């Protein structure tokens, strides 16, 4: 399979102290590292799930791919050529990558009708020779809504409907890659499958690559081919979804999977699977950054940072003592 997206050693850093104060602040505390040394690749037709809790850097990583946030180190290659630069320089790339944002309603421009919103990609890229109204009708039908929605405004839509509109917009220009940031956020259990089913069906039809960023482990389990687990900005485990769920190698992955509440009253857990909280990005723990919450932590974990290494041809983990 040809690699569509290749990310290698990516760092995304945010300035936290700005202006004249930056001159006084110690060098290390001017920035926080949201993403550190992240490497992953997505092939055409593949679904990659990027999983993490809040503050894990998964959204920053997704936004860095299309240049909404700049990256400081590492490379992002799309179809083999490196990306980066100004909004103008990124335009051709953004034409080929569709993005869905977390908040289904807030990611739709509030003063535009659904019809105008769906025509936006064609306007932005000044695509000639296509009837924009017809395209909007084609797109709205593709996501299973009737043409009456074209006259509505985003605030008149339910979360699930807005999610479909966001999906239709992301797919407007037949992208080669779709990035979906928390596609189930804010949706009820009974409708959260809709958007994902649609994505999956359209992927089967068009063969695009899918990068799904989520904290929803139970959902991603069913729809992704491979998973990457992020913790404090680093990818701590990567591999085929089935393998990871069957036998997680990183203690954090194991805790994350065990923390999902089971809808079965006969299963009662005695203790929460992971104690403690995610440390602050500003005060990263020494050694392995997960050692503060890891029940297997040794002195080595507290002092020496583990490298990302392969434990199988298609599986990697950032841990001195992988489980299993």
């Amino acid at each position, binding site marked *: 399979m040809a690699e569509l997206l290749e990310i290698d050693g990516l760092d995304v850093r945010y300035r936290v102290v700005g202006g004249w104060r930056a001159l006084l602040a110690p060098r290390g505390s001017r920035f926080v590292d949201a993403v550190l040394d992240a490497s992953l690749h997505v092939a055409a037709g593949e679904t990659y799930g990027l999983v993490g809790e809040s503050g894990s850097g998964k959204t920053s990583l997704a936004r860095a791919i299309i240049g909404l946030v700049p990256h400081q180190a590492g490379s992002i290659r799309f179809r083999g050529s490196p990306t980066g630069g100004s909004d103008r320089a990124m335009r051709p790339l953004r034409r080929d990558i569709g993005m869905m944002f977390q908040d289904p309603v807030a990611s739709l421009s509030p003063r535009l009708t659904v019809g105008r919103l769906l025509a936006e990609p064609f306007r932005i890229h000044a695509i000639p020779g296509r009837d924009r109204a017809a395209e909007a009708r084609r797109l709205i039908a593709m996501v299973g809504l009737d043409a009456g929605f074209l006259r509505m405004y985003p605030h008149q839509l339910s979360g699930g409907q807005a999610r479909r509109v966001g999906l239709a917009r992301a797919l407007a220009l037949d992208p080669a890659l779709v990035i979906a940031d928390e596609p189930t956020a804010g949706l009820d259990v009974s409708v959260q499958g809709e958007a994902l089913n649609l994505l999956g069906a359209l992927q089967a039809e068009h063969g695009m690559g899918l990068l799904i960023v989520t904290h929803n482990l139970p959902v991603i389990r*069913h729809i992704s081919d491979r998973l990457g687990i992020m913790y404090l900005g680093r990818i701590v485990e990567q591999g085929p979804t089935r393998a990871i769920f069957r036998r997680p190698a990183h203690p954090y992955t194991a805790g994350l999977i065990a923390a999902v509440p089971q809808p079965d009253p006969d299963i009662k857990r005695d203790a929460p699977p992971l104690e403690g909280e995610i440390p602050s990005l500003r005060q990263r723990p020494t050694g392995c950054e997960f050692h503060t919450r890891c029940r297997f932590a040794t002195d080595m974990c507290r002092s020496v940072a583990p490298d990302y290494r392969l434990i199988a041809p298609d599986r990697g983990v950032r841990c001195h003592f992988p489980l299993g």
Partner: protein
Amino acid sequence: MSPPVLAIRDLSVAYRSRRGRLAALRHVDIEVAANRIVGIVGESGCGKSTLIAAVLGLLAPNAEVMSGTVGFEGRNLLAATPAELRAVRGPRIATIFQDPMTALNPVLSIATQMIDIQYRSDEGATAKRARAIAMLTRVGIPDAAQRIDDYAHRFSGGMRQRIVIGMALLMRPALLIADEPTTALDVTLEAQIVHLLREMRGEIAGSILFVSHNLGLIAELCDEVVVMYAGEVVERAPVRALFHAPQHPYTRLLLACDPARVAEGTFPLPTIPGGLPDLAALPQGCVFRARCPDARAECATPPPLRNIGAGHVARCVRAGDG
């Protein structure tokens, strides 16, 4: 058997709106017995928020109670005066809301807030402070004696929710209402908070009304479950009966949609097609009829709440048929 702590009977609430009357709650019956955890499951628009507001006497100005009573400690809260309600809210019925970020006052220290809520107690400030510190330690705040003088922003989201729970339980309320208390938290913190709630229930001998859309949490924490749909109680059962032998089609479909129950690699994921009925113009008969895969002619008349036995009731004509 002792009388229930909270007894909601035949509660109907409607909102006046420009589109007419929205029947947000219709004939809701819910009982919370002493030392029991009752879970309310429902998706957006099912009436959970209206129900909590009605119990707390915090309904919006355009809401109107059409019928029913909310019995708590021998009186009807719907008929209580504002002063009586204030005496109930907090010391007798404590509430934990969804967002721990906004539940604490940002300009007062945790100590000030926790001493303030004990204003009905005759103890001195030192004793109140000691109680607050003991409670914070109990809910898992490390170095509570020092950290109690910090302000809310110095604590993480998970810690804040622990503090909120501690504050809620400080006055030993008879009833704790937890309104989606973990929705704003990450899954590892969610597990911790649910664990904490389960631990605390033994100590306060109180009852908990736990509102959530997460079936896994309900299964883990609750003794009884009430399923709500479009303003009605569609099913009410002990937790094992509900998860193992659901009777209402909505409950069954909801359980089937939970990705944690779906077999690995299922695609497409199950969903419930269709949407909520319009509360301003409810359909005749069963509210779930339009989305129900087993709907039949007899569903056009309002289904009765059928008793299946052992505290299990469902609002479906076919309930109990097997």
